[in-house]
């Protein structure tokens, strides 16, 4: 393509782009199409989104998308999962190949800016670089790791973060640089290094592959902030509200002790106005965010349970990943999950 055509095409994109400030265009498109196109991480992401032997997707991010589909359509099955790679996710979202990304995308300023024009309605998972050590070292904090041998991948932010952390705390460490993640795990497993560092969720997945997973602990410190959020295009306030309040409903439900098992009973018997509004017994919360039905939150919880139940089913201590709640706990239990009230 020559530069004149390119310039013309670029100008056309800018012109069209400027015109899409109308609220609800994406949501209208989703409703007209009859299903939600949900971008999930390809080839797969253990615990977050994996196709099973029959080709059906399951996982934490997958259920978030299904919950959004309940809010929009009242039907968890009106979702099409579109695998995207880390390279193709943003172009795919911009081009409308997907409506939402639910693939562990970190919310950052540049992505949220007017340059990239993405929106992050709500954080679904708090990740961050973590440190794993063998239990036999009797270490409870990363600050006790003076003189440790650390296995890291060269040229990654992981490497920079760990070296910053040790410098900032006046600690010495010996780096062992290995390019391949599987090799690092073997080196750590065989005792060549004391410390294995990576993002928390990925580190937990690696822990399951060690010879004795129970002999290793992930320390409480986080060396970086990775707030993972559902990502949509800018310019559709209605879709933003729907995504945000689907997530908030899951979190609020857990905070109020509403579970898959007791949701119907609570909806029938509760006199608490906050609970009644969330479950659509009174008020018009569903209507005001354009949900398909007034009791969308009740339907979501009946189908998938609250945030904690989804977490425990795919990522929690009883799954192969074995993640502790940590930051991803309700604020009343020491975590960071804090949703605005449904009123």
């Amino acid at each position, binding site marked *: 393509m020559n530069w004149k055509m390119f310039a013309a095409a670029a100008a056309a994109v800018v012109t069209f782009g400027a015109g899409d400030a109308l609220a609800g265009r994406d949501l209208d498109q989703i409703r007209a199409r009859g299903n939600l196109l949900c971008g999930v991480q*390809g080839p797969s992401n253990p615990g977050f989104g994996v*196709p099973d*032997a029959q080709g059906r997707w399951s996982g934490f991010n997958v259920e978030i998308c299904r919950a959004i589909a309940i809010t929009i359509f009242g039907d968890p099955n009106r979702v099409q999962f579109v695998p995207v790679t880390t390279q193709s996710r943003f172009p795919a979202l911009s081009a409308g190949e997907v409506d939402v990304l639910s693939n562990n995308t970190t919310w950052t300023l540049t992505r949220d800016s007017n340059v990239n024009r993405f929106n992050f309605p709500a954080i679904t998972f708090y990740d961050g670089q973590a440190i794993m050590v063998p239990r036999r070292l009797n270490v409870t904090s990363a600050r006790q790791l003076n003189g440790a041998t650390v296995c890291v991948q060269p040229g990654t932010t992981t490497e920079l973060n760990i070296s910053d952390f040790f410098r900032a705390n006046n600690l010495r460490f010996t780096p062992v640089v290995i390019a391949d993640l599987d090799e690092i795990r073997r080196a750590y497993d065989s005792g060549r290094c004391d410390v294995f560092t990576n993002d928390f969720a990925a580190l937990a997945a690696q822990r399951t592959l060690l010879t004795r997973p129970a002999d290793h602990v992930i320390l409480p410190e986080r060396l970086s902030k990775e707030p993972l959020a559902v990502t949509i295009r800018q310019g559709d306030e209605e879709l933003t509200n729907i995504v945000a309040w689907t997530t908030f409903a899951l979190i609020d439900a857990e905070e109020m002790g509403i579970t898959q098992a007791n949701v119907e009973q609570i909806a029938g018997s509760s006199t608490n106005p906050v609970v009644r509004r969330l479950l659509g017994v009174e008020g018009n919360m569903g209507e005001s965010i354009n949900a398909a039905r007034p009791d969308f939150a009740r339907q979501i919880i009946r189908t998938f349970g609250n945030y904690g139940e989804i977490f425990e089913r795919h990522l929690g201590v009883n799954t192969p990943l074995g993640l502790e709640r940590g930051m991803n706990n309700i604020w009343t239990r020491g975590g960071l999950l804090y949703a605005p009230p449904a009123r």
Partner: protein
Amino acid sequence: MSATTLTPSAPVQAAPRGPSFAERATGFLKACFDGPLNTAITLGCLAVLWFAVPPFWAWAVTNATWNGNAQACREAGGACWAFVREKFWFSIFGLYPFEERWRPATMITILVAMVIASTIRRFWTKWLFLAWAIAAPVMWMLMQGGILGLPYVQTRQWGGLTITGVIAVFGLALGYPLAILLALGRRSELTLVRWFCTAIIECVRGVPLISLLFMAAIMLPLFMPQGVTIDRLVRVLVAYTLFTAAYMAEVVRGGLQAMPKGQYEAADSIGLSYWQKMRLIILPQALTITIPAQVNTFIGLFKDTTLVVVIGVFDFFTTLRAALGDPNWLGFPTEAYLFAAFVYFVLCFAMSRYSQNLEKTLRPESR
């Protein structure tokens, strides 16, 4: 194709009996221990085998797990072929809806039958083209559905070895004639045609396949008018076909240039038109002498189909990688990659053997 114009080969004469097995074995041993250098190399190779084979055998066969779950695999310590078994059909059909798997199964059967039929020289008639022209839309309709009561399945749900087969067969089959036209165009005496073909070849060949696929899948929709969409798989197929054509065109051009000038002049002197000359004289020879180079390119392009993962198409290899993420089966990448290597090897080796066979039958004088 052009091969129909060749005369049938002369009856094969019985080859003289070669040396007996004992003679050949002695000769082989002699060659192995002929002088200190050869002896050293032989002993070195034996030592490597001695250290490499038993551990591999123990891992892959003796301690291997063929049935059971991941726990059984981890306890046995050997290869976990149970993982490959568990994910085998997933690697064939990918994300295609489970209840509808009979459709890609039928499609693959038709595809394999058509490919096998196309390799048999007796079938190289216009009927074969007709058969393909009927089979291709039938296969597409079968996969996509939406008619005759078949549920509609979007192309983004197609996957596994099915999609690898579709992209490879159709990309290569459509790219090949296009390549011949491009090669002829590049050597044309019409300046405009020559420039046009050269530009296409150089532009397409000058960028990596990944960027072509990316343009086709992601960038193209940005430049299309609102509401106009072309199916993503079609866009990918077009990009792959163009890429195939550009590479093959250069191979074919090599064959064209290798033809002695006398062949062109002889064809001219008996008054053949341009197309008659190409069809009857030049192309049959040019294509035959370039078979090794063509197959080389074919095999390379076939393996390039794995690159469609960048735009989220789940081909065979990507499907296996997706299966690796199953939380219940974490930690068996070696088995999955060995299985993938085995499948790709079988397919590429089949292509290679077929081409050697073709070379022999098409060039009796080189036997």
